[in-house]
């Protein structure tokens, strides 16, 4: 904790959890989309998000984040109109997601190139977030660090190959957190690797070349 955690953050109101945190959840999706063109988002709101989103501008905040705005961008207020202008279709529905944190959103996004993806995350207070699922697979990261998601086949040695390559090619990279989840033995698996440093752009391409790795995504701090 430092002085700017107390006097700060600079944010668009009214609520750090329902507005600022919601923008950051949207920004995770923005990082997943990268520079591809977004055509449609379907947003499901659960718990307190579902009950109070209108009064807190949670809908605008999520959409603004998805479009790449930050939690202090004045554009959040006009996010719905901006999305209309950009030709992005959007919808908000309320649903009670079982066992989810009270401030949970599930964002399904459709890209022009036919890609469809999902992200589930929660705003856990004070603008902090926790991402729980990406494309249906369990992950666990908070967006405070640079995070690499590696989708791969559950085969022996994949984790060792990825971390070995990271250290061999970029010896100052330091892993601060690691999480693995898989759907079934030998099936699809996903590694969540949080890193202290700024990972170089080429790192993701290097990981993609490793045997049994299907894809890798870098989500820089949101």
């Amino acid at each position, binding site marked *: 904790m430092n002085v700017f955690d*107390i006097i700060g953050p*600079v944010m*668009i*109101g*009214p609520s750090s959890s329902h507005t*600022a945190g919601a923008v950051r959840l949207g920004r995770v999706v923005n990082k997943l989309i990268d520079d591809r063109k977004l055509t449609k988002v379907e947003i499901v709101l659960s718990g307190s998000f579902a009950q109070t989103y209108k*009064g807190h501008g949670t809908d605008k905040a999520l959409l603004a984040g998805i479009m790449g705005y930050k939690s202090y961008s004045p554009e959040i207020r006009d996010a719905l109109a901006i999305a209309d202008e950009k030709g992005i279709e959007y919808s908000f529905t309320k649903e009670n997601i079982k066992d989810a944190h009270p401030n949970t959103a599930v964002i399904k996004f459709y890209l022009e190139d036919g890609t469809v993806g999902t992200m589930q995350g929660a705003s856990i207070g004070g603008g902090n977030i926790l991402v729980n699922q990406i494309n249906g697979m369990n992950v666990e990261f908070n967006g405070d660090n640079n995070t690499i998601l590696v989708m791969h086949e559950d085969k022996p040695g994949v984790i060792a190959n990825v971390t070995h390559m990271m250290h061999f090619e970029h010896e100052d990279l330091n892993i601060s957190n690691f999480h693995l989840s898989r759907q079934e033995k030998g099936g699809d698996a996903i590694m969540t690797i949080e890193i202290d440093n700024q990972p170089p752009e080429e790192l993701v391409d290097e990981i993609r070349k490793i045997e049994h790795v299907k894809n890798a995504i870098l989500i820089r701090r949101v």
Partner: protein
Amino acid sequence: MLKYESINELVKEAENRNVRISQLVLEDQAKSMEKSQQDIYEKMAKSFQIMRESVKDGQAKDQKSTSGLTGGEGYLMNEYATTGEGGLSGSFMTKAIARALSVAGCNASMGKIVAAPTAGSCGILPGCLVSLFEDKGYDEKDIVMSMFTAAAFGMVIANRASIAGAAGGCQAECGSAAAMAAAALVELGGGSPKQCADACAIAISSQMGLVCDPVAGLVEIPCIKRNASGLMIAFSSADMVLAGIDAKIPADECLDAMAEVGDSMPRTLKETAKGGLAMTPTGKKLRDKVFG
């Protein structure tokens, strides 16, 4: 390095080195963030600038919250403050109240604010500091420096008690903001480090047990007006101390009591909108109006 676990630690260290708490904190934070003191000072100065903009933003005649439940409080108060004698408490105080209401209103209408320490209590510190700057001619550099003192007190409160309404009720939000502001005001008024701690203690004592009971779960009713009362408590605590009145219970003990009171507060009174004003007949009616 400072640990920010005790107000007394800050006071003793400042006394030993014969510096203001703000100077101590600026040096410590520069070291721990591995940045220059100038960089850190400028970042804080930027926050003060944003606070001044939030005051202006929230004072607009047509200011209205996103839910429509509140709006125009800052405008009305400022009109009142700038007419004649400036009301019963005089124009300095009523203008300061107008500023606190304006920033809180700016927050409710999705304007840009600096959380201090939270969004719900964001009007108290700017209400105090912008008033000293604009109406009493205090030096900007001293004011920005006093924000380091306020932040240091806030860190101790966060470590020792809480700054989240969901964890400790409104005493943790508006209470903490008023205590932080009181310490900053005393430093600006020329008080000693020990007097900063005493003002913090008095402000915390004055809001001990205050619950968080927002109507419809929104940061509006009663939050906006509690920013005005928090500001008054910050000024009265600072002025009492500068008049030579000391706090009978030391600040650290007040914070421990605040933590204990927060822990024993029922869930219904900690930002869940299930008790207090939120569950009054009118509170429920307003909730139904917004969320149907």
